[in-house]
């Protein structure tokens, strides 16, 4: 049988463990890749910077319409490869509200898979992405029942 001395030590260890678990449950680590570009105040006001290298970041890129009805991995790969070759570092894309929703509810799994594929190809070509989600999906149950509520204040 353990002596009270060992029991006390065991209790302290347990307490530390419980506190450790409690700490990480209160402050869970993020389950996504942290966004690399941050904002700070520079000599001329707000500026973007690379949070890993601490270097100021200026975006040079293009708007690119990727076909979400007939997504082509090859087309996206070819375009992004050219962007990289020409020295661009960013691309702005539109998430098509007609395609992103799932008529059965929520978002289209296929469209999300394609979007992730695009992001992976952008990463492989050192491109940062500005996704534009400009309208509520036409399907998926996102439009409020009274559509007049969506307009104007």
């Amino acid at each position, binding site marked *: 049988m353990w002596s009270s001395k060992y029991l006390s030590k065991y209790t302290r260890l347990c307490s530390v463990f419980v506190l450790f678990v409690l700490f990480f449950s209160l402050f869970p680590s*993020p389950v*996504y*890749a*942290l*966004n*690399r570009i*941050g*904002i700070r105040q520079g000599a001329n*006001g*707000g500026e973007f910077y690379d949070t890993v290298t601490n270097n100021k970041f*200026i*975006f040079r*890129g*293009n*708007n*690119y*319409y990727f076909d979400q009805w007939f*997504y*082509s*991995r*090859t087309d996206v*790969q*070819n375009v992004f*490869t*050219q962007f990289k*070759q*020409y*020295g*661009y570092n*960013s*691309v*702005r894309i539109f*998430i098509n509200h007609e395609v*992103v929703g799932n008529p059965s509810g*929520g978002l289209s799994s296929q469209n*999300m*898979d394609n*979007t*992730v594929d695009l*992001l992976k190809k*952008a*990463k492989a*070509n050192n*491109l940062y*992405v*500005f*996704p*534009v*989600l*400009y309208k*509520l*999906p036409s399907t998926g149950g*996102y*439009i*409020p029942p009274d559509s*007049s*509520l*969506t307009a*104007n*204040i």
Partner: protein
Amino acid sequence: MSQPYIDAKKRFMQDFINELHKRNAPTEIIVGYEFENELTFQLDQKPLSLSSGTIQTASDVYDMSSQKELAMSANLVNWSNQVSDAIKQVEPTALTTISFTSPIVLAKQKFATKNTQIVSTFWIFVDSDKGGSSIDFVDLHLYPAAFEEIVPCKKKCPEVPEIRSVPISVDDQMNAYQITSNKKPIILGEFGLSKDNPTLETPADFLLNWQVSSCTYPFQGWLTWAWDQAAKITNYWSVDENDGAINQVMAPIYRANPCKAEKTLPTPTPPSLPPPVGYLGEVSCTIFNGWAGDTSNVTRSVDVHFYADGSNFLGMTTAALPREKAVCDANGSTENPCNHGFVFNTPVSLKDGKSHTIDVYAISPDGFNPKLTNSGKTITCPATNPGDLNSDGKVDIFDYNILIGDFGKTGSAGFVPSDIDNNGKVDIFDYNLLVSNYGK
């Protein structure tokens, strides 16, 4: 911007981001989520068309005879803060933004939509210290534009007034924003040239000067409208047309400093690495095989992507199986055997009794993605029961045993016959497909 609309937008943004996280998307490359493009109000629609009475909005109650501007501003701040907060609840390090087109273009451009405007108190987007929106940065869109005005006459005026076109410059457009704070970065998220907007210069030179003149303002980035299709759809000059004329003045390899008109000298040519090479061999109702490699890096294995009938993506695999000397020689490899072969199981989706054309592409991280030689073969495979994994004409215990043996395995789409639904894993969905066809 009623609360139900705000809630819907919050839910959409959160669902979208959560779906990215579920798929382990590389969110580190996302600069910021833009949740509204070229925000405007419609003055000829309710409630802004009302000139009296009060309205209940998501932020407060407003008198429409005297508080329209306040109603717009306060609701914009309330809406954008709620959506921005919702985004950060699921991705705390994300940045958020909204884009705008210049108020003066909306007000004066000859083909502008009537009765459209953004708030005149634009400061609410750039100055959160004064109670403005909490979005992290602002995306402005500046397009060359013009408005028409009657030429003033002093003595004898013509019967038909003379009309002249007055360009709206970068300065005109920026002054209209009345930006009062530089704490938030701004980007020029769209700039381009409409083909309806004739200029004395070439489109490329015009846009070059347009970009340089924007450098009077503290822009932290420039994105052209647009690379290809988006520009063509909207009748704008695309960056890649005319042998890439606009690209040759916009691309950083040609002009390193976006604020200087001088091109980088000597003009570098884009790197032209030898494309991958490869050959599509057998295309049957059982397998596709062949080889692919990269002559610029003979030890590297390249991915190959399979398509049916043009755009129907079937799946991918890596060409890394051992192949004989002839293949190694064609790829420039001194090894023998060399790891450039591939085998891909014919997907069940093609087994429908119809003819299908098969194209295979080699995917290179450095260059273009050519079709393999001999692509374009056609096959017609008899329709089979989903679940007939051993192709013996019936779904029975032998198919069941194959699937159970493969259960839990993952790979490229259709990597084994047990991946009946071609989702890259043998799982409960494949099991259900087999069971539902059992005995057929």
